[in-house]
């Protein structure tokens, strides 16, 4: 049996934060997180800001080392990769799409620079072949090749910038893509088309995806499975539709009930407002407690309750 493309084993990450007074405090961003992602599939990591989901994403790419635990890529601990060649090979396999499409592009360079560079570096392309590949990738990311290649990032809209970021990932030729809230800084009206583009490329190219989001409503567009993070830990995991339709952990329930839903009116009932606040406070308190027992709610759907 082939190993999963990505596996995290009891991954923990503690940040030491130095403040301006010189004091230090440590923050446990990830606590004993284990997960598996099989090739060609997508896993959504859902959680609020500060839940540790972005830390998980960056740790998975190897941008920083874990405090303890392992990140395995195709069964190999990425901390043991040595040598420029091997590291470059790993880089080629694992890429990331960032949350802020403006910040992820270098303001001093054109779109062409952003796309040509990985093709030269990883595929040794140049001349006509390079131009053809760039054109092909631009078309794949649904960008207009005649009007975007020689533009600077500030001349593009948010949606176009995010497509350039996506195109760059394609140019590298990644097998595993970590998408860190790729739509949260975009207008609501283009989020869906962006999600659908990512989903389509995943199918066409057989990409494996770790999709990180605070918006549980978007998880099922891309990911077959969803894991819910809360206080640096995973508290629920299962097929996306199962988790959304039958949430088991109290936090997942609160999260789902808070998603804006056009068919439900907020009528100004102050008793309901107070009840919701009490429930939220109760659930927040659970973040500090020990995690509950893992139980299988339905086949493949687990929750720590």
């Amino acid at each position, binding site marked *: 049996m082939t190993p999963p493309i990505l596996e995290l084993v009891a991954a923990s990450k503690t940040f030491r934060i130095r403040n301006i007074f010189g004091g230090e405090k440590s923050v446990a961003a990830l606590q004993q997180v284990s997960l598996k992602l099989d090739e060609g599939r997508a896993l959504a990591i859902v959680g609020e800001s500060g839940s540790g989901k972005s830390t998980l994403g960056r740790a998975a*790419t190897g*941008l920083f080392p874990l405090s303890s635990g392992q990140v395995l890529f195709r069964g190999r601990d990425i901390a043991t990769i040595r040598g420029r060649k091997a*590291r*470059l090979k790993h*880089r*080629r396999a*694992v*890429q*990331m799409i*960032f*949350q*802020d499409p403006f*910040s*992820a*592009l*270098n*303001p*001093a*360079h054109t779109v062409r620079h952003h796309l040509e*560079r*990985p093709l030269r*570096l*990883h595929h040794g392309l140049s001349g006509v072949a390079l131009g053809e590949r760039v054109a092909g990738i631009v078309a794949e990311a649904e960008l207009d090749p005649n009007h975007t290649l020689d533009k600077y990032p500030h001349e593009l809209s948010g949606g176009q910038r995010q497509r350039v*970021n996506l195109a*760059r990932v394609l140019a*590298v030729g990644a097998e595993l893509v970590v998408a860190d809230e790729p739509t949260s800084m975009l207008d609501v009206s283009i989020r869906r088309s962006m999600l659908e583009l990512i989903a389509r490329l995943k199918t066409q190219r057989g990409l494996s995806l770790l999709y990180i989001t605070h918006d549980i409503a978007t998880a099922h567009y891309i990911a077959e499975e969803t894991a819910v993070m809360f206080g640096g830990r995973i508290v629920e995991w299962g097929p996306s539709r199962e988790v959304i339709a039958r949430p088991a952990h109290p936090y997942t329930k609160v999260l789902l009930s808070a998603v804006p839903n056009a068919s439900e009116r907020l009528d100004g009932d102050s008793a309901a407002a107070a009840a919701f606040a009490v429930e939220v406070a109760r659930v927040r308190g659970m973040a500090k407690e020990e995690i509950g027992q893992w139980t299988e709610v339905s086949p493949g759907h687990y929750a720590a309750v």
Partner: protein
Amino acid sequence: MSGSLEVIFRNKKAVVGLAIVLAYVAIAVAAPWITEHAPMQRVGRPHEPPSMDQLLGTTRMGRDVFTQLIWGTRTSLFVGFLAGLIVTVIGVTLGITAGYLGGWVDEVINFFTNIALVIPQLPLLLVIAAFVGQASPMVIALIIGLTSWAWGARVTRAQTMSLRRREFIEASELAGEPTWRMIAVELLPNLLSIIGFNFIGSVIYTIITEATLEFLGLGDPNAVSWGTMLYNAQTSSAIMIGAWWEVAAPASFIAVIGIGLSLINFAIDEISNPRLRTLGTVAKAAKAQRAIDRARVDATAPEA
């Protein structure tokens, strides 16, 4: 970045500043053809006021002030640009290294930068120059260059750190770019305005400081520069006896080059900072709005 030249030429301050600096460079290059005397040659009686023969009068030693001024331009620009270059190279190297690498390297560099910032510059220069004794312009340039990098290192470090946090650096790290290439290709172009600002600021600082050191008698009195002209004027009490031209000539030359360089820096700031760039339209719009508001108030006011 083909439009950047156009952006510079649309900025009036940049154009005036560049014109001044280029004029000085032209004077420095053409010094032997502009003047008929040698700078140290005695051409007339002491303290002669300006006349057709001696355009800017003579010094106590009977030397031609105009000739000294022109040759002094050479010295001052050379010292300014040399020290400016040293300051910028050291400052940028330390700043990028500290800001990009972080960790203990940053701690060490930052510690020394902070110390260099709180030890008073001029007294330190004076002590060094005093021990060197009659420092030539070249030595002065070296001393200034080697002791004045702290400010540049500090701002470059701050800017590098803020760029380091931007995700495009992480993205190219993920793409497998080697470190030198990330610094040279991804980071450096975004630091250009700060480096330029630092360089020009250092040139101004050096020209001023060189003149000050020489004025205080720490330079080589046989060198021809604006600073030694001021020093000789001071020791001969030129002002007290009314020989204002001996002071006015070098003083105004220093002031004008300083103004020219400053205007360039002001323009760099304006061009690179979007909030400052749009000020013209902000003021125009505010004026237009006031006119519209006034018209509206007049129209609705009860007729009396």
